[in-house]
């Protein structure tokens, strides 16, 4: 018999990715000038993945 996953009201993966985006942004001012874009791209990318993750969870719950 398979064990059921506990139900989480918040999408933990989306929260994790948003925290990663925040960390990436916080480090942008500290990064060397020629590599500042890395943090910005990473933050945007994490945010897009977080939104995708949340939409995935929402669509599963409402289908």
């Amino acid at each position: 018999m398979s064990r059921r996953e506990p139900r989480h009201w918040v999408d933990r993966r989306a929260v994790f990715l948003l925290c990663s985006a925040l960390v990436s942004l916080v480090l942008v001012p500290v990064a060397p000038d020629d590599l500042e874009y890395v943090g910005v791209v990473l933050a945007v990318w994490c945010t897009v993945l977080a939104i995708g993750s949340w939409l995935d969870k929402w669509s599963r719950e409402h289908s």
Partner: protein
Amino acid sequence: MSDVLLWFVIAVALLFDFVNGFHEAANSIATVVATRVLPPFAAVVWAAAFNFIAFLIFGTEVATTIANDIVDQDVLSIGLIFAGLVGAIVWNVVTAILGLPSSSSHALVGGMVGAAVAKAGFDAIVGEGLRQIGVFIVYSPLIGLVLGLTLIIIVMWIVHRRRHPHRVNRTFRVLQLFSAAAFSLGHGANDAQKTMGIILALLIAEGKVSGDVSEVPLWVVLSAHTAIGLGTLFGGWRIVRTMGTRLTRLQPMSGVCAESSAAFVLFFTSAKGIPVSTTHTITGAVVGVGSASRLSAVRWNIARRVVWAWVLTIPGSAIVAGCVYWILAVFT
């Protein structure tokens, strides 16, 4: 006497490189062996060969960063570099005993910093170089993570439209050979260059090459790649069960995505001259791939230990190296 000391410390640096290959071989071959794409010996030879030929593809930017951008060149000496190496080695041994997945790269940087501070105070540190390394301690696993997650989503989307799971599985088993080769190339490029940087710093300290050198002597390049390749050859035999199976269980498809993502990060950072931890990079990629199914697929207790290793390695190895430098200073 000075030349004997110089060659002794170069030998210690190459030993450090050998041990690096020995420890981290499993990162490249774990999934290939676990999925029986190659038998262990062939997988180890495969990884070692790509470790070695990395010098033909990548420059020596990481080596020059290690030699020029961590410690002020006026402070460099054989004693300082030896203390830094000993600090890194001791830290690696202690964390290995404690089971912390420490990064030998960060330990090396921490060791150099600690020995330099013990010798000449905080003014001996090159802030710009250290800042770059510090930022990429966080960025490199994060890039691996988001790349791994993105790649696995794309691949799963493509694969689920096909109706031949056996053919898909066979394709990814073959692709694993290439992703493992790419990761081994990145590992060889980034990690062997750290030893090159240490040897270059030694040569600069002894006046054997000029301080503004941007090209690393060929014998240094070849010896560093040989040491890491041999380390991989000997270490891979013993260590097969590692990140690939411990952090989250990888299938051929997820193995390809994780290794390709980590390889991309190592190629990028090697080209930019940024020393990063190959272990932390592949860990980030494995977590990213594992979290595609669900976040609980990742064994977070191991991921948490990696984060602790992030936090502790540089200060820890710096303290050990500083103490080693002071002890050496008392006896010399």
